[in-house]
């Protein structure tokens, strides 16, 4: 049996979902018998591959970089999984939405800075007007809420997907779990 290709990507999130993924612990060995991890902040491949079977996305879509990344990821992924509340609901990153970008950027780069307060013009991708959940931008196949979803929930969902089943998400996790 050829192995499935698994990728994980990290948008606007705290990396907690990736930590929870690692908390699968020794079951990771079981998993890598069935899948190859072809792209992830946890491994060293630099470019997103052409054809990925399952991609887990952590984080909300907050800036221009996230936006371009998620579109590319979607185009090259068969099953896209929104992993965790930030990807599913926009969660904590969305708390800036009621205030608007200008106020948020000023607060971060001017009001709270003592040394040379200034707005960034290079290297930092521009923020989108609103932080949005992943399904607001591209089609998502499975939503796995939780902040973060437990390792057990991630593992159970992955096993189901690898075996070609639809995971019973409501039985595994919930918003804020």
């Amino acid at each position: 049996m050829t192995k499935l290709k698994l990728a994980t990507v990290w948008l606007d999130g705290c990396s907690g979902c990736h930590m929870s993924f690692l908390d699968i612990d020794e079951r990771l060995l079981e998993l890598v018998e069935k899948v190859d991890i072809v792209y992830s902040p946890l491994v060293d491949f630099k470019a997103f591959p052409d054809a990925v079977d399952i991609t887990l996305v952590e984080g909300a879509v907050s800036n221009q970089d996230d936006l371009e990344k998620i579109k590319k990821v979607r185009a090259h992924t068969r099953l896209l999984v929104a992993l965790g509340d930030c990807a599913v609901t926009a969660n904590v990153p969305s708390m800036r939405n009621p205030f608007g970008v200008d106020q948020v950027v000023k607060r971060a780069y001017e009001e709270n800075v003592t040394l040379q307060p200034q707005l960034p013009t290079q290297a930092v991708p521009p923020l989108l007007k609103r932080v949005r959940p992943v399904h607001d931008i591209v089609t998502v196949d499975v939503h796995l809420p939780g902040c973060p979803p437990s390792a057990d929930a991630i593992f159970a969902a992955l096993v189901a997907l690898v075996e070609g089943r639809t995971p019973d998400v409501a039985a595994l996790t919930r918003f804020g779990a």
Partner: protein
Amino acid sequence: MTTPSQVLTLKIDGQDVTGRADETILQVARENGIHIPTLCFLDSLSPLGACRLCLVEIKGSPRLFAACVTYIAEGMEVLTKSDRLNKYRRMIVELLFAERNHICSICVANGHCDLQDLAREMGVTYVDFPYRYPRLGVDASHERFGLDHNRCVLCMRCVRVCGEVEGAHTWDVAGRGIEAHVSADLDFPWGDSDTCTSCGKCVQVCPTGALFKKGVAAAEMVKHRSFLVRLTAMREEAE
């Protein structure tokens, strides 16, 4: 003419059941172990029919009925589960999430919240409606309690418990439509209220993290509601 105490027979989900003429579909369903999801309804408070989660189908009518405010009738055939009902109940739950800013992960009620439970029951794992992200405040003016409008679902449990059980009538709903919000007295800060007795009943009956005790951290606000049934039973005995 039916009298309030008359016993009527009807069918709920195909099951033959009986109830008194002054009972609602929800009451009779519960007496017979048939579960209907609810949010605004709370035993011992007057039913309101605000949230519409308890919608049921009644044979012979294209309309849907709120089970908590619809009285039973002789020969009625009620359906509490169907694809159509599921669709609407899911939609209601999703709209409640989309309407205000529910960030469960940092909510005092996380893990003890009726809205979260409903989402789970309905299998809502994401919200298909665009979130509104309104800019809403937190009223922290009361010495012991707080009101976070971001998490209010306008069930009016607080309004009813305060008026009907405590007899203080501090809470009301001010504004219309999307502007509607619970308000203390004449839309004053809660801490300035002349009528609030600080009994905390509203905090306990609130289904979400909207009303909370100060000093609790995320996921710590466990609500205790057994007082309500006890209090009502004692009052009925006294009458």
